[in-house]
């Protein structure tokens, strides 16, 4: 049985360290495949960095938000889905869990 999208580990595309810069809560990423530069601010940058450290499932990301310093996020599940959608739109995710369904 294949894992569902909630259980599929998400990973960030390989990026050279020189193509990323972090200043305070802003992360700027250069994607040399398309020449685009992305600004990932706040929690989006935090999730990006977390996924870059090691691939994680959606439920692990939700748990991270629930246990982290993010009391302002009312609905972590919906929030993470939005973040993943955004990272997918920017083509910064290495594999798309929906593609493996």
């Amino acid at each position, binding site marked *: 049985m294949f894992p569902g999208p909630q259980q599929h580990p998400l990973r960030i595309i390989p990026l*050279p360290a*020189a*193509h990323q*810069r972090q*200043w*305070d809560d*802003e*992360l*700027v990423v*250069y994607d*040399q495949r398309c*020449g685009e*530069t992305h*600004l990932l*601010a706040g929690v989006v940058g935090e999730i990006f960095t977390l996924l870059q450290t090691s691939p994680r499932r959606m439920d692990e990301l939700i748990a991270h938000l629930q246990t982290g310093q993010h009391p302002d996020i009312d609905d972590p599940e919906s929030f993470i889905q939005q973040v993943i959608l955004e990272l997918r739109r920017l083509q910064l995710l290495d594999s798309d869990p929906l593609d493996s369904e």
Partner: protein
Amino acid sequence: MIEIGPFLVRLRSRLESVASAVALHYEGQLRAPDTPFCDFHVRLDRSRGIRSRWRPQARFYLDETSPKPLPLSQAYPLFEWGLNWCIAQHGHRFLMIHAAVLERDGQALIMPGVPGAGKSTLCAALSLSGWRLLSDEFALVELATGQVTPLPRPVSLKNAAIDIIAGHFPSATLGTRTHDTTKGTVCHLKPPADSVARAAESAAPAWVVFPRFETGATDQLVELPRGQALLRLADSAFNYSILGARGFETAADLIGHSDCFELSYGNLDASLGLLNELSTSQP
């Protein structure tokens, strides 16, 4: 032959208005005509054809190719705009940012700005009050070192800015006013002699300030997060995409070494005061 920072320009023209303006504005940068090498072969002449009999026009040629002509009265501004085009098309050994750049104590103040943001007015005023003019139009950032290379050229003033600078700085050398250009009335300010004499001295980026002129605005400098500043700097660069990863790394290094601000600008003296405070408050 004109030496403009890292570029040598061979200019040929029969137009008296161009010859006199070049003699005025590039007085300290003219080189022997037989200088063997040059970066740009430029010609500025009357447009030919029957139309030119009743509506005289000037054409700018780079290696004998020419974009659209302009009225003959705009021949000198056409030279300056054509030169911008030459540099933007060919200066890819630099990250080229559309910005005014000034220097003090070896540190560069970079002011990117869309047309109308007020960067040329601020640039002219700063260059006449203690800062060294590096460029009114291009921040040339060396890819290898991140240093800003000077490009001392006349500062292009438009419309109300001309009288503002003439009024504040009566000793400033201003050229002839050209009316009815696509930018309105245009007048060039001769670069200070010190800027020309020190054209080989590069400077380290220290401040990136995005000015925004608004009539009646309260003058204030507001810190800009570096990530946002980097995206705006990339938007202002002529060749960021062409340079690819090197463009990103150069721009990111520049931002990383600079304090970044937005300048809301309504009053020249007040904004000059704010920008002067930047350099004096540096540790």
